């Protein structure tokens, strides 16, 4: 102690406080660095745990895992093709329904709506995003599915029954029901991101088009949308990423059957739903490992999809954080 004070005494006061400040700075930076480092470390750990959990199944099935469709825990035969198919198909249905709706809302809110309407509508749609997935599932089981089974599905079968997509018995829980609930759930995301992208389009684009005599709709299609195109596609892909990983509502509505069916009225299964249903009851290491393999595939797919989306959004709203704040 004395040595320190002796050394400090002859120095001017400012230098002492500077030195102390230096310590403070170092500690401050150290704490923050630990927090910032924790994030990549955790992700690395996540990838490692998934990989090592799936190791057994990867060794046994290799890439055949994603091309075969037998799922038999007793015989320890696992193929995830129906799960991958179900994940892709339910997300595709969701996109087909959600994209026109959310783009319609986004374009209306940025280009046409009176100022007093914009905030409240965007706020209400934001509320949709705040509803937990399991509540969508609950509502789906007791309200949506009964309604679809008695009205919409028979009507679809009557009108489009010539297509294999709309044939066969109507159970209620089905690929189509899951697709519809997914559409409701991803719509707020696509809407808010494409709204941000549209807001980032410079006003001069609109003004130039209007000055050339375009109607307001023509200004949108000829000047605004082309400018924002890649960002809008990014918003859609971001919605796709959400749909691929969505678990609870889909688990509750899709019917949970390891099968590839032509009809949208038939039950199906998704990767996330299979993990949710079977993981805690899995018997045997191979079953658990197969489910971890599914989780690993799902993780890789969503990472790729999200990376593509970010890149596209970034091209339009460069520098701004469009996309990330909506999530």
């Amino acid at each position: 102690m004395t040595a320190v004070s002796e050394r400090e005494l002859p120095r001017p006061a400012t230098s002492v406080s500077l030195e102390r400040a230096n310590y403070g700075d170092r500690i401050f930076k150290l704490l923050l660095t630990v927090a910032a480092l924790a994030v990549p470390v955790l992700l690395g750990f996540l990838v490692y745990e998934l990989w090592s959990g799936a190791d057994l199944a990867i060794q046994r099935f290799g890439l055949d895992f994603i091309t075969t469709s037998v799922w038999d825990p007793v015989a320890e035969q696992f193929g995830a093709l129906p799960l991958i198919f179900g994940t892709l198909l339910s997300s595709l249905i969701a996109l087909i329904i959600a994209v026109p709706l959310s783009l319609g809302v986004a374009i209306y809110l940025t280009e046409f709506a009176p100022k007093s309407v914009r905030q409240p509508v965007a706020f209400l749609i934001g509320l949709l995003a705040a509803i937990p997935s399991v509540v969508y599932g609950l509502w789906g089981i007791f309200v949506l599915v009964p309604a679809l089974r008695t009205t919409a599905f028979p009507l679809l079968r009557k009108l489009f029954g010539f297509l294999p997509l709309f044939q066969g018995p109507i159970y209620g829980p089905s690929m189509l029901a899951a697709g519809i609930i997914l559409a409701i759930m991803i719509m707020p995301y696509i809407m808010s991101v494409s709204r941000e992208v549209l807001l980032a389009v410079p006003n001069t684009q609109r003004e130039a088009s209007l000055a050339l005599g375009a109607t307001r709709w023509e200004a949108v299609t000829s000047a605004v949308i082309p400018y924002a195109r890649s960002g809008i596609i990014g918003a859609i892909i971001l919605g796709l990423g959400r749909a691929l990983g969505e678990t609870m509502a889909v688990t509750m509505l899709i019917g949970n059957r390891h099968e590839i069916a032509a009809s949208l009225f038939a039950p199906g299964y998704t990767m996330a739903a299979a993990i949710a249903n079977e993981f805690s009851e899995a018997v045997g290491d191979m079953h658990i490992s197969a489910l971890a393999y599914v989780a690993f595939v799902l993780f890789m797919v969503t990472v790729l999809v999200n990376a593509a989306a970010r890149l596209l959004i970034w091209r339009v709203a460069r520098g701004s954080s469009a996309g990330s704040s909506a999530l």
Partner: protein
Amino acid sequence: MNRRVLRRTVSNFMVGLMIGAVIVALLPLFFILIDLVLKGASSLSIDFFTKTPAPAGETGGGVVHALVGTLLIVGMASLIGLPIGIGAGIYCAEYPTSRLTWVTRFVADVLNGTPSIVVGVFAWAWIVATQKHFSALAGSVALALLMIPMVLRTTEEMIKLVPNSLREAALALGYPRWRTSLSVVIRTTLPGIVTGALLATARISGETAPLLFTALGSQYLSFNLNQPMAALPLTVFTYATGPYPQWHSYAWASALVLILVVFILSLGARLAIRKRFTLNG
């Protein structure tokens, strides 16, 4: 001139279609909220908030075990997730040129898009598989991991809104960097950071998938984080997919409570911020 009328009609027609889209998009929200109130409110009683569930087939009982469970699990998740998320967010905003900032930001984006069920599998493999029993703590870890990227992003965005002149003024007065950060920069943005934290908490309180095989759920009131524990979202799931009408009414009432919690948290967060900053969304 006929062509001009046609073009204007097309324009108006498209606007009409878009208004239709707005209405269709908002319908599910109203239906869900109305159904929740109609089917859930009647089961809400003092018993519902103070008792554990009645045995299957009997009436009465409540979900106090799930309320306590959600509070504990989410509280623990916030204790783990908020310091890391906020700290990393401050780091990214204060040292924007560092390579670690770039990596952390990128990783946060990846984590943000990771399905919550995958995070659940991770928490299972890390904690449940090594401990050989289900635990609420594993659920908290999964939720914390979901929380970190959200908190990180909002914290960073908020700090970036602080004008540099404020920082320079503090430094010119002789404040060291860390005091400038803490008592000038972060203090100015505190409401924003709190908002981000509340929003993230609201988001994770509704998460079910990561809890399925970590916290697992339970029928009993428990305060032990090292044991399986009930949580509101799990209650909704179990009771909704179960066979008894009494369970279904528990499910609706729990969902109503859950959504009230989520809405109050996120509305509170948004209102708190509106006065100080104008962030879109």
